[in-house]
């Protein structure tokens, strides 16, 4: 069997044991996570709006994405409310989801399977809105994995900005296959 042959060949050919490094990663030194996060979102092609609480968000979404009809706000409403929309995910114009944590250094927002409601929603919608609570910000990826490590048991994704490509002559184009835009609401009393 190929499995045994491959494992045998590795045993025969592998180098002498080498230790793993004792320390993995580096502590971040960002003094203001909110400012660093906002800058990273901008660099990744997204837009960030800071709000004190969630109440103004639905109105701000309509303001930021005028003319959108097929909006599924899966943070403030139950998916049942949007049954007719969600039956045809390819027609979704705006999906609103909540991130579980976010990384200041690169603007990556972590969504667990349950945060996506359905794995395909953050990708198939024309525009994506993500809500991040300020107290879930961490400095870098090492700090993120310390917190997330045990939260992963099915599917999860880091999302940093809208879908993009530079495959035609290195010209950056926003909106390749996934969301054409990313709007992030950073929510917290002190933001």
């Amino acid at each position, binding site marked *: 069997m*190929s499995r045994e042959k491959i494992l045998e060949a590795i045993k025969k050919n592998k180098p002498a044991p*080498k230790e793993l490094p004792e320390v993995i*990663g*580096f502590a971040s030194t960002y003094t203001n996570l909110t400012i660093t996060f906002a800058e990273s979102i901008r660099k990744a092609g997204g837009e960030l709006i800071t709000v004190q609480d969630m109440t103004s968000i639905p109105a701000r979404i309509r303001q930021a994405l005028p003319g959108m009809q097929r909006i599924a706000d899966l943070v403030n409403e139950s998916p049942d409310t949007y049954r007719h929309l969600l039956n045809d995910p390819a027609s979704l114009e705006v999906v609103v989801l909540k991130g579980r944590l976010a990384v200041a250094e690169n603007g990556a927002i972590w969504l667990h399977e349950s945060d996506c409601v359905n794995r395909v929603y953050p990708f*198939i919608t024309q525009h994506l809105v993500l809500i991040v609570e300020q107290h879930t910000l961490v400095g870098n990826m090492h700090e993120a994995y310390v917190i997330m490590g045990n939260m992963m048991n099915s599917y999860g994704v880091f999302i940093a900005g809208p879908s993009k*490509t530079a495959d*035609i002559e290195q010209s950056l184009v926003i909106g*390749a296959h*996934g969301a054409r835009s990313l709007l992030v609401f950073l929510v917290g009393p002190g933001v």
Partner: protein
Amino acid sequence: MTYNHHKDHSAAAAEFLVNKERVQWHDDALWFVRSKRDKAAFALPEWEGLRTQASAIKDHTLSCLDEYLQQFEQNAARNGIHIHWALDAQEHNDIVYSILARHGARKIVKSKSMLTEECHLNDHLEQKGIEVVDTDLGERIVQLNDEPPSHIVLPAIHIKKEEVGAIFHKHLGTEAGASDPQYLTNAAREHLRQKFLTADIAITGVNFAVAETGSIVVCTNEGNADLGVHLAKVHIACMGIEKIIPRTEHLGVFLRLLARSATGQAITTYSSHFQRPAAGSEMHVVIVDNGRTTQLGREAFRNSLKCIRCGACLNTCPVYRRSGGHSYHNAVAGPIGAILAPNLDMKKNADLPFASTLCGSCTDVCPVKIDIHDQLYQWRQVLVQEGYVATGKKAGMKVMAAILSSPGRFSMAGKLARKMLKWFPRLAMNGKLNPWGRQRELPEVPAESFREWYKREHGK
């Protein structure tokens, strides 16, 4: 879609070099990416520390690779993922086809996977009447143009936007003469949405496979891997044995390095972690050897298995930038390709380790500290010993070795050369005898050597 093996690297490069303007354009495009990488790397004070950690994690993993693969297999199986093992490209293709056949699948969407390029999976499936659509924009462009990718991260870096416009006009019905990247990308988006929505099965590559959780991580900027996987009822992920890393926390190190090294981004737009198939769907991982265990046994070259396919060594390489990816006639081009390819077939790829100036820039930018230029140099020794190098090059090297190994002979040769060149200035640069002389002129010949000058000026 296969490569032209009749031409060696230098012959293919010579053809590429005919259009000077295009060479400059290609060179500039890649240098632009290299510059973005530098900016991203220098922004992190711990960059060198990250490279050291990444290199050490990979060294450790290779030294226990069999144990980590089994740990990965166990954990993935517990999560409901089907694991398959393939000794070579043929078995890999057969396994993938058998899964498709079992589901009666006719339409496949595939995100970027250099392994499936290496195995020529598309050809294999198309011969069986299956439609395989590459969904990464660059890969779709080269697929429609019936050619292989020329770069592992930027598959269509060799194609101009006007040419993309012509390809899309022919295949997707875009306006004739259109060349605006925004317009063309949008046309591809609409075209590929239909493919995503109607595909039976999605195939992806694997960036990292985590042993302790049995999960795989796939990174894209376009979102094409996720759209394919989440809309199809079956996901097949294909990985080389070297994609394993031991623990989740190691992802922090590699994800900080990968996109910065590849395109100068802090992270790719999407870093997707697949640990369990979605309810009602099926997930398979095919683990492939295809010569990797042999490379593991070659002490001088096993480091090449640490590669995370960022493409930084291609972008920085003065030879790659001026010869183009297709001149390497191998799925992985550039410096890293030139040390992976001879392991697959020494005879076919004996030219590739010579496609380098050994300047060492590849080694400097490698995020996992592979000693790429040293390995290129070592492959040259092996290929000469094994008799895969043309006799002209071999004879020249013997003469050079004889001269350079003796100070007396070296000094004599220098004197002779200075005289000869004064009398026959074009002799050394005769293009027939010395290919390096074809586009070059020598500087003026000095009257004396440095040693002679030093002796005269400083006495003894």
